[in-house]
């Protein structure tokens, strides 16, 4: 019992500690593919450290929403990290608090506050980016719902720990057509939600074209550090959901000893690293979509998820 609480805390520390590393890894690999030397993979840590030591400048016209949002954006992924399988294959102490749907809503809460705060300051670029983020978000909602529903329908439960067992035990279940289609739909969803190419350019500096990055424009000092860190953790958490539940549900600790749980940490890092390589290849080979084409992209994701549901339902 106490073990489970300790494992939960270790899980949260893993998420907090390694999220900026993944961010640095992606940036470094993207630069390497373009034949540049690239920044060090620990650069996000250095950035966060630097930002914590700077003063904050806050607009006079902003309200309490602006001040409270960095904390919310920082805490929501931590909450979700308590619920999902990161290191262990069995539910931990706080896992009763919510299932996948709940986790999805908590992440959406963070995004909601970030959009509100972007409108709060009076900067013209903030609302522009916020409205675009909302557009992508509302188009992605049906896909989220259908993916989660289909996965739950197939596995018989909405708790991620039970769901991922369904793909693990009979290996043949892995190759079901609905599973493959779901993986594809969820991948497109991750690309849309975390603002990667082809939906959005995460390393662009041009405010007129920003979708997701614009939420962090107005912050400075400690708030900016929390926003950055929170963004990295959201990415990490989404990847954990994707990899540990759908794609590679192996390598999670099954036993209850500390040693096994610690052994699961390199496994999750390796899995994320492999996926990051794929993501970087996708990012480097596609161009950013024009804004109105994003609806087609998400429409394709929607259709893929519906096909997954249909092939599953009607095969019965």
């Amino acid at each position, binding site marked *: 019992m106490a073990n489970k609480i300790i494992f939960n805390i270790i899980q949260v520390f893993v998420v907090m500690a390694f999220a900026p590393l993944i961010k640095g890894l992606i940036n470094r690999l993207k630069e390497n593919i373009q034949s540049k030397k690239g920044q060090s993979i620990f650069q996000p840590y250095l950035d966060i450290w630097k930002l914590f030591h700077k003063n904050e400048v806050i607009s006079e016209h902003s309200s309490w929403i602006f001040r409270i949002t960095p904390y919310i954006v920082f805490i929501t992924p931590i909450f979700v990290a308590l619920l999902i399988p990161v290191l262990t294959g069995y539910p931990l102490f706080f896992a009763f608090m919510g299932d996948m749907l709940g986790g999805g809503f908590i992440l959406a809460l963070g995004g909601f506050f970030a959009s509100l705060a972007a409108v709060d300051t009076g900067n013209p670029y903030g609302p522009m980016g916020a409205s675009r983020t909302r557009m992508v978000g509302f188009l992605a909602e049906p896909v989220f719902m259908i993916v989660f529903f289909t996965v739950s329908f197939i596995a018989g439960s909405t708790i991620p720990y039970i769901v991922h067992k369904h793909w693990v035990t*009979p290996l*043949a*279940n*892995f*190759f*079901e*057509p*609905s599973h*493959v*289609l779901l993986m*594809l739909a969820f991948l497109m969803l991750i690309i849309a939600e975390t603002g990667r190419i082809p939906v959005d350019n995460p390393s662009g500096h041009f405010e007129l074209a920003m979708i997701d990055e614009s939420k962090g424009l107005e912050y400075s000092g400690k708030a900016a550090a929390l926003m950055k860190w929170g963004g990295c953790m959201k990415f990490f958490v989404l990847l954990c959901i994707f990899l540990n539940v759908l794609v590679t549900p192996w390598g999670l600790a099954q036993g209850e000893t500390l040693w096994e749980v610690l052994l699961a940490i390199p496994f999750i890092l390796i899995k994320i690293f492999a996926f990051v390589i794929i993501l970087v290849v996708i990012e480097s080979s596609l161009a950013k979509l024009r804004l109105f084409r994003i*609806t*087609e992209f998400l*429409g*394709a994701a*929607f*259709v*893929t998820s*519906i*096909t*997954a549901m*249909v*092939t599953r339902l*009607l*095969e019965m």
Partner: protein
Amino acid sequence: MQDYNVVFSVLTKINALAGGLFILTAFGIIAMRQVLASLNMFIFQSILLAASAFVLGYQHSSIHLFVVVGITIVIKTILIPYLLRRIISKEVYARREISQVLNIPTSLLIAVALVIFAYFISSPLSNVTNDIFVKLNLPIGLAGLFLGGYVVIVRREAVPQVIGILSMENGAFFAGISIAPDLPLIAELTAAFDVLIIALVMGILTRRIHERVGTTEVGKLTSLREE
């Protein structure tokens, strides 16, 4: 016996995977904006057809189906794209976008409705047998047939319409290899060559239209009417 069950289960899953991706490629042909991308989707679809035929051939131990695999790969993935690229002049392919009657998200939604309709039609048919391959291939092949027909209706250009017709044949064959695996070999061979001749004839006709009319937007050719 245990071994056989495991092998059988793996085969069904691989066939199911091929089927799911088959429908996805049919969606892809509808959703792609450029002609060459549609053509690549068609090639991928033919490879999936060959994969399913391979699995079924192994399952039924039928040499016919292995021959079908070989013919599909040679004709549909190699010869037909080669023909289509050679016969039709390059500038038809160089244009950025294909003109369509409906925009892509609407087309995709109609496509989903067609897939559901295909499943609905084929459910009384697949109740006739207990063969799990039939239960999978028949609805997906029928859906491929409908989606290919939809591509022909919705696209206004010549080459995407050709690709649509060829993907209809792909769909019919995908269903056919599971429900009629013992069709006489000569029928399979001639059907395959028939598809080749279709591509050849349509390619030559497209080239002629391009030379004579100047464009391959066959949707704009509407002069024969009772006005």
